[in-house]
C-alpha cells in the first residue's frame, strides 16, 4: 500500500479549497505523506491575500449559512493544520511566471517546483487526486 498521496489543486474557489485541504489533512492525519501541487487558479488557495477571500461559485452564496452551521474550519485554519501535519505545498513555477507572482506572495513554508517535480513524487503515490 502506498504511503503517499498526491494532489493537484488547479482551481481557486472556496469549494475547491475545502475539497483540497479536507482530503489533504485527512490523509496526513492517517499517516500519509502528502504533497499538493498548486497550479493556475489553484495558486489562489495559498496566496497570502487571496486565500482569505475565496469565492463561492456564482449562485451558491447561500451556502455560507451552512458553512457556519456545520462549524467548518476556515481555510486559513485548515491550511495551518495541514502544514502542521506535514503536508507539503508546491507552487507551480510556470504559472507563477505567467501571473507575475513570486514566492513572497504566498504563505510561508511553500516550495516552488515544476511539473516534473510533482510527477516524480506522484509516480509512487496512490491515490493521485485532481481538484
Amino acid at each position: 500500500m502506498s504511503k503517499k498521496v498526491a494532489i493537484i489543486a488547479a482551481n481557486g474557489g472556496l469549494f475547491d479549497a475545502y475539497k483540497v485541504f479536507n482530503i489533504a489533512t485527512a490523509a496526513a492525519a492517517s499517516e500519509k505523506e502528502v504533497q499538493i501541487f498548486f497550479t493556475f487558479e489553484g495558486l489562489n488557495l495559498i496566496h497570502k491575500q487571496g486565500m482569505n477571500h475565496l469565492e463561492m461559485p456564482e449562485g451558491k452564496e447561500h451556502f455560507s449559512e451552512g458553512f457556519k452551521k456545520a462549524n467548518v474550519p476556515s481555510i486559513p485554519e485548515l491550511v495551518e493544520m495541514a502544514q502542521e501535519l506535514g503536508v507539503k505545498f508546491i507552487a507551480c513555477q510556470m504559472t507563477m511566471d505567467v501571473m507575475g507572482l513570486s514566492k513572497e506572495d504566498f504563505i510561508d513554508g511553500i516550495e516552488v517546483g515544476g511539473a516534473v517535480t510533482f510527477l516524480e513524487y506522484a509516480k509512487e503515490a496512490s491515490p493521485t487526486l485532481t481538484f
Partner: protein
Amino acid sequence: MNITKTIDATGLSCPMPIVKTKKAMDTINSGEILEVLATDQGTLSDIPAWAKSGGHTILEQKTEKDVLYFYIQKA
C-alpha cells in the same frame, strides 16, 4: 475499561475529529485507550477507517444522546 485520554470533538465537522484523534493518539502509548466524543455523523465511518489505516483497534462504539463515543486502543 481503563481510559488513558479523552478528546471532545463534538460540534466539529470533517476533518477536525480525525485530526484531533490523530493528535491525541500521538500522545499515548501502544496498548492504551483513547476515548473520542463526536457529533459529526461522518465519524461513524471515518473513525473506523482511520483506525484501520493505523492498525488500531476499536474496542467499543456507542451513541448516547446524539453523541458518538469511540474507544480506540492504540496499536
